[in-house]
Each structure stands twice: as structure tokens, then as C-alpha cells.
């Protein structure tokens, strides 16, 4: 089978299409015939080993020992391991699996869920990590409640587009902050208020929010503090290391002084219950993945370059075409 392998740490040039052996599922594994996969910030952080501690995770100091690449996946179950009870060959699933950018991938049974029938493989593949990050950040870290005023910064990216829709689904009043070219997209996602950050700095407008969810937040914590109600919550997902450190280190300190709380959420946890919940929202049309571009498997490196360089609107999806189907 064909698979994208990460041959080294570095630029997208390290991603190469190679012929490798088709894997066989063990115990709790499911063999998935991949139809679509999608790119997350996590992928190119592992690609570049940036932040540095990725090299300290035992994945190889100078180059990755495990060259499989990609996480988000959607496809059809081809075979199952002996202990798998939830899935059968032929089931259409989505979830995460190490090495998603390939014709076939092994997924852990607990890391996947059934794909809603009314959604395409491409749409389903766009969901897992980005939507789990938004869901867990809003619901678990921030404790979102209906009626709150919620501000989403970085609303047009992969996590942001889900965050806007999920916040709406929780019954909150959503303000989306984005660049001028994404205003239309935000309207289409039913954001209640839209702020063009080139025209208005929301930390200086005097408006206050119960919850600020910042994807790659770039204001200082004291500015965010100005824009938070007493008892307000600030959660940042991703961002550069200094920003994450700031939220972790200073955050807890600021929190002690008044009711406001600042937290940084780590990497989203792959939780089957949450995947099932997202599948229900997808099925009911409460969330719709925003897909910026599609690339074939052979052009994964190009696709990653596109995500890294241009701020993609929503997600970039890799489509896997199997020769037997053509």
C-alpha cells in the first residue's frame, strides 16, 4: 500500500510517499481503508519536532523512529482484531489513528466512532482533533453554560470554526474575532457578533465576556483580563510556547487574585464518548466542518505547506483514492 512517511524532522520535504506493507490488526485494533484524512497543527509540530520536547518523547532524537504520519482519519473498516466488539468490516468510521496519511491504517477501537451516514468521509475526517480540542476546551476547561457571552479568538482556523459552532450549540452568544477575509465565513457560521481585528481591538472596546477561547492567543494576559467579566474564564488552545508558558505560569497566579481564571489546555484527549457526541451534532446539522482545500495523498507535503504558510479557513483534507475503485 502507499503511505506518507516522515523520513526526518524538518520542513514538509521530509514527507514522502512510499510503498509499505499493509498492516494487520492486532487484538483491539481495527484496520481502516482510509478514504480521507486531515491536517492538524499537531502534525506539523511532530514533523518539525517543534517544540523541542518532542525529541525527548522517545520518538527518536535525530529522526523519527516511527515514520507513520497523520492522525485524523475517516474510512471503512476492512478487518478487526480478535478483541474488537464495537465494529465490523464494512462500518464507516472516523476518529484518530497514527499514520492516517496512507491507504490503510490501524486504529485503536476506542479512538474511533461510527461516521454519520449523511456526512462525507472528507467532512468526517476534518472533525476529530480540531473539534475535540474545541469541545473539551469550551466544555471541560472553561465550563461553558448557556446564556454566556463567549468570545472566540482565531475563529477562522480548524479549531476556531468548530469552537464557534459548538459554542452556539451550547446556547451562548458568540463573538468571533477574525481577519477581514473571514468575515463572510463567520456570518455563515451564525456568529452573533463579528470583530475584524484589523479594525478593532476587543481588549480595548470595554466589552466584557464570560468566556474567552483563544486559539493561538496573542494578547497579553493582562489585556485578556480587561475583557473578562469577574469570574470569567480564559482558555487558550495551542499557541507558541511562550504564550502557553505564560498562561500556565502567570495564569494560576492571576487567577488567585480575583475570580477570573486563566488556563491553557494541552492536547485534546481522544475520547470515544466525545467522538460519538460530535457524530450526533454532525448528524443533526448542528456543526458542519469548514473545509478550505482538498489534496490527494501524493501531495500531502504540499497540503502541509499550505496549512503552515497560509492561515487556512477551517481544515485542509487529504483524499485517498484507491486504484480498485477508480
Amino acid at each position, binding site marked *: 500500500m502507499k503511505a506518507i512517511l516522515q523520513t526526518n*524532522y*524538518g520542513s514538509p520535504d521530509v514527507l514522502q510517499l512510499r510503498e509499505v506493507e499493509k498492516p494487520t490488526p492486532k487484538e483491539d485494533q481495527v484496520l481502516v481503508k482510509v478514504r480521507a484524512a486531515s491536517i492538524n497543527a499537531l502534525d506539523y509540530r511532530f514533523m*518539525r*519536532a*517543534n*517544540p*523541542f*520536547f518532542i*525529541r*525527548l*518523547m*522517545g520518538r*527518536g*532524537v*535525530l529522526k523519527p523512529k516511527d515514520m507513520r504520519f497523520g492522525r485524523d482519519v475517516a474510512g471503512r473498516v476492512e478487518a478487526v482484531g480478535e478483541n474488537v466488539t464495537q465494529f465490523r468490516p464494512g462500518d464507516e468510521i472516523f476518529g484518530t489513528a497514527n499514520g492516517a496519511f496512507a491507504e490503510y491504517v490501524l486504529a485503536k477501537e476506542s479512538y474511533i466512532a461510527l461516521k454519520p451516514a449523511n456526512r462525507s468521509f472528507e467532512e468526517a475526517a476534518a472533525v476529530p482533533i480540531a473539534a475535540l480540542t474545541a469541545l473539551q476546551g469550551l466544555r471541560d476547561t472553561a465550563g461553558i453554560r448557556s446564556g454566556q457571552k463567549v468570545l472566540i479568538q482565531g475563529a477562522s482556523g480548524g479549531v476556531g470554526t468548530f469552537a464557534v459552532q459548538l459554542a452556539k450549540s451550547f446556547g451562548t452568544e458568540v463573538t468571533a474575532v477574525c481577519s477581514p477575509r473571514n468575515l463572510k465565513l463567520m456570518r455563515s457560521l451564525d456568529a452573533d457578533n463579528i470583530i475584524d481585528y484589523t479594525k478593532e481591538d476587543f481588549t480595548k472596546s470595554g466589552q466584557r465576556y464570560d468566556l474567552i477561547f483563544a486559539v493561538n492567543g496573542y494578547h*497579553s494576559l493582562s489585556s485578556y483580563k480587561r475583557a473578562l467579566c469577574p469570574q470569567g474564564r480564559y482558555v487558550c488552545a495551542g499557541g*507558541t*510556547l*511562550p504564550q502557553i508558558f*505564560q498562561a500556565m505560569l502567570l495564569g494560576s497566579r492571576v487567577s488567585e487574585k480575583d475570580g477570573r481564571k486563566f488556563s491553557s489546555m494541552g492536547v485534546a484527549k481522544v475520547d470515544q464518548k466525545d467522538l460519538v457526541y460530535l457524530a450526533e451534532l454532525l448528524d443533526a446539522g448542528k456543526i458542519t466542518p469548514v473545509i478550505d482545500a482538498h489534496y490527494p495523498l501524493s501531495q500531502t507535503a504540499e497540503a502541509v505547506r499550505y496549512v503552515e504558510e497560509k492561515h487556512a479557513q477551517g481544515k485542509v483534507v487529504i483524499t485517498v483514492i484507491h486504484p480498485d475503485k477508480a
Partner: protein
Amino acid sequence: MKAMVWTKYGSPNVLQLKELEKPTPKENEVLIKVHAATVTIADCELRRMKGLSPLILAFRIYAGILKPKRITILGQELAGEIEAVGKEVTKFKKGDQVFAPCLLHLGAYAEYKCLPESYPVLKPASLTYEEAATIPTGGINGLDFLRAGNIQPGDSLLINGAGGSIGTYALQIAKALGANVTCVDSAEKLDMLRSIGANHVIDYRQEDFTKNSQTYDVIIDVIGKSSFSRSTQSLKPNGRYVLGNASISSRIRARWTRMTMGKTVIVAVARYKSEYYAFLKELIEAGKLKSVIDRCYPLQQLAEAHRYVEASHKKGNVVITVADSMDK
């Protein structure tokens, strides 16, 4: 057993060879027959225990206010062979060859040393005891400074005080990862630094790196002596300044700079974690990392070794050989 005992705070002469009782390991400890130990600048600073800085005062309270009491033998890292293990020890057995940081126990300048079993690490077979003894301080700190600075392939890195134990490790690791490295130290160490991969070298007596208009993605100040505000100006946008050997006042200034100037200033504190050792082992086995040993002294000549290190002549590491010199 024989040991070089730290009899008083003061000059190298306070280190005296004495006959002590051989220690027995507690339940969770291993007894190590010491083959090699090291002398670092930090050992010399501890030995003198001079000055009123909060760190020195805290250590005096720990080690003994007027003279060494709780701690009577210096030496912060060692390599050797496990001689006996306590009842609860599961990780090691007699005969294992290990190296270890002694952390707050100190005590490497002796024929035998007991340490909790969580401290030692199996020595890669390709390394001698002398080489392995230099890893805990130089290797772990060097790696941790790079981690703190988030060094990336293609980054430009300046190491101020690169010629010592930490610097020579940091230089080689950064080179293995594809960074472009400039080393600052005194003239006599520059050839050695070039020989282990430095792309550029600066003699600090001839040139002030903060004034030559060069900028860097990461600056590691091993010795913590360069001008703080000028050093941060030698950083590129998004640059990271990593401060080793940080005094309390520079810790406060680091926080202040981080908050007011938006520059990243990091005070690194080494972590002795298994993944750090695994990282170094992988590089050593790939032939990308070696310990630079300047001189070896037998244990009896420890005072001499301290004098040499104190005079800042040390290129890389100074090692004390223990078991071999005692057998003779």
C-alpha cells in the same frame, strides 16, 4: 575507605585525604564503588562557600553554618560499579556499571558512595567511567538549556561560556540537531571548540558579542556573566535567552523582561529524567556526542584539580580517577 574530606570552607587545601568507614546502603539505596568523579566550577564555589548570596546562605544552612557538617565530602557526579544493593532495590544488581548525579547528597570524592536507586543510570558500554562521569552535570544541563531555548534545525545559537562542561555538551547536541553555533570563551579554548563543531568562535577578551550587531535565535549564557539587557538585544525577534547559573537578581530580572519587553527569557533548571538520559544515549551511540576531557587527576591530587578548575583553564571536563588510583 579513603575519601577527600571537606574539612573547612576555603581554599583547595581544605580537601584532605582521610580514612573513613565504608558506608552501607539503606533499603532503597545502592552502594557504588566509585571509579571516576569530576570537578566543576560549581564544586569550587561550594568548597569556598564565600559570599552572602541567598543560594550560598541556603546551602550553608543545609551543609553547616560555620564548617561542613552534614555534607563532608564534595563531588556532585560519579561513575562506578554497583558493589551492593539495599533490600528494596530492584533496578540494579551487583556488578552493574553506572553513572549518577549525587544531587544534594554530594560525596563523589570517595572510594564508595551510597545513593538512592533512582539516581544511577546504566553506563553505555562504549563509554569509559571517566567519560560517563561527566554526563549528569554537563550533558543533562546542556540538553536542558537547549530544550528551554527550543532549539530548532537552522537556528543560530550563541553559547556564552562554551568551553566548559555544559557548553561543550550543548554545542555538540545543537550541532547534531542542525543548528549554527557561535561559541564565546577565552582564546585558549577556541581551537577545542572548533574541533568539536563550533561554526564561529569569539574570544571574549577581544570582542563583546553584545556589540557586534549579530543577532541569534537562541542565546545560552552558561556562566550568567554577560550583560543581561544587552544580551537580550542580541536576540532576533522571537529569540530565546536561556540563563544558566542564575542569581536571584537575574531571576527577578528575567521575569521582568519577560513581562515588559515580550522577550523570552528562561531560567533553566536541569531535570534528571530518564528521557533526558535516553536522548543523550542515542546521540552518544550515533557517534554525535562525546565528552571532552581536559585532564584526569588521581583522587589524592583533588586539591590540585580544584586549583586548575578555579583558574578557569578547564577545557571541557576535569575528571578525578578514584578506584584505579587507589588500587595503585
